[in-house]
């Protein structure tokens, strides 16, 4: 069905090497972002909100910041950045002239997108620890979980990349899908405050909802059986979008 071997690694490594080459610009956002959000929302807005369900507001939003950062970095890596490599740089064309096949190129890109999410989560963790808004040692789980969550957003992004007519059209999923998720996935206020139909909608089709729920369980060190449902949702959705992305990309690139 899909034709994938260890050659995926060479595609992943290409992106890793390019990332390391420009590490200075790449490593700054994950340090700066949580500081800005925590100061503005956590401690600014938090003065009025104080607690949500008995949790201090900065502690409430800390897992959401990690989730959002993973979503953005993985999704944008596999939309705009992958599109540039595919369409403008012709990098995919160059690679498929070697024994590496198109399935491996796309899989390597998605694993790289996931890795980026993981790198961001890893770099954010010490900042959050410094602010004292995440529990240890359970919060170490943020790192492996960000790999899975990252793969989900990378795969969703890659599906859009496979069908977009041009780079500008990628703004549609960014504004119509990613931005609403940023706001309505239990990130800055609990899902339960929304009307019930919207809650169900969020649980059904907004992947970030499940990611935030799990990350919040991790940073608060309070796990519940519901988290298994969240995890299952993410695993299934990741598998579906991963395979779909490869299918759609084959259709686009094999002519």
């Amino acid at each position, binding site marked *: 069905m899909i034709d994938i071997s260890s050659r995926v690694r060479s595609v992943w490594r290409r992106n890793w*090497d390019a990332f390391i080459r420009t590490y200075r610009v790449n490593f700054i956002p994950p340090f700066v972002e949580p500081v800005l959000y925590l100061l503005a929302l956590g401690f600014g807005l938090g003065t009025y909100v104080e607690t949500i369900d008995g949790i201090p507001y900065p502690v409430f939003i800390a897992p959401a910041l990690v989730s959002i950062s993973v979503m953005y970095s993985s999704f944008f890596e596999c939309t705009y950045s992958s599109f540039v490599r595919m369409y403008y740089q012709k990098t995919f064309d160059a690679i498929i*002239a*070697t*024994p590496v096949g198109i399935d491996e190129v796309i899989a390597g890109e998605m694993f790289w997108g996931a890795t980026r999410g993981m790198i961001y989560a890893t770099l954010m963790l010490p900042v959050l620890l410094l602010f004292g808004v995440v529990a240890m040692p359970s919060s170490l789980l943020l790192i492996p979980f960000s790999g899975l969550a990252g793969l989900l957003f990378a795969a969703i992004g890659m599906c859009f990349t496979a069908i977009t007519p041009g780079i500008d059209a990628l703004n549609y999923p960014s504004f119509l899908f990613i931005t609403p998720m940023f706001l309505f996935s239990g990130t800055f206020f609990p899902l339960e405050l929304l009307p019930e139909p919207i809650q169900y909608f969020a649980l059904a089709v907004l992947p970030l909802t499940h990611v935030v729920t799990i990350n919040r369980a991790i940073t608060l060190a309070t796990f519940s059986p519901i988290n298994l449902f969240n995890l299952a949702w993410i695993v299934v959705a990741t598998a579906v979008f991963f395979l779909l992305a490869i299918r759609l990309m084959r259709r686009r690139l094999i002519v």
Partner: protein
Amino acid sequence: MTDQEEETIEDIIVARDLEKRFEDLTAVDRISFRVRKGEVFGFLGPNGAGKTTTMKMIQCISPKSGGTLEVFGMDVDAHPREIKGRLGVVPQETNLDPDFSAYRNLLVYARYFGIPKREAEPRAEELLSFMQLEEKRDVLIEKLSGGMKRRLIIARALINAPELLILDEPTIGLDPQARHLIWEKLRSLQAQGNTLVLTTHYLDEAERLCDRLVIMDHGKILVEGPPADLIRKHAGSDVVEAARTPEVVARLDRLGLDYDIAGDMLQVFTDSPHDVARELLEVCRHEAVMVRPATLEDVFLRLTGRSLRE
């Protein structure tokens, strides 16, 4: 064409009735050809003739729509990875990796072939010096000139020590110095026993480099053979060119000689150029008559016409 020849292991590429269709267009229309081990084989043809499409099918990156195609004796649909591992590719559109230097481009590319780093590093240095790019070793792609990029992409195509090189317009847009350097390198690759398949729009290049070539148009192969044979067969030994005046036309008609019209000039393809020239000098000023040997360009234009392709 060559279907009746007996099959030998010396054939690196064998295509029979090879066909490629895009939705409503047949880009390659049931062509047959064989490329023998160690030869330089050329594909010529006007824009849109189907050369690149044919190259991409040989490279196993574009699936054929019909016919059979074997490279190294393997079917392209069944063994793409094995074939691609033994192939070097210079694409028509330069696709070097802009995120890396010249040297790192070679290393990153070597990784796609699974070549270990300790082998790839000396090989990359060697190839940079082979293509005279040592000084640009650590320069980013965007800072290379067009000719340097083309040389680097040839170096990249050699990273896996391929037995067969596919070069789609290797000297596109290069100055004469760079073209001569590339010709020299391609010849030395052939001397080492490599097989080369190339496309080009420079007919002098094809004439110099190719042992055999085909001229394609509208997805079909019009002729195949060594350049000298094609010239002899389709243009004769020489060409007499004369101004296109009514007197010249009248004289040629009276002599019963065929001629081609090329703008304000007439061309007579002939094996006895001096006799023709002498006749024409009687009705022309002498500067207006020129005798020259026939070239592949004459063959090309005669076979594919003079009108521009859209």
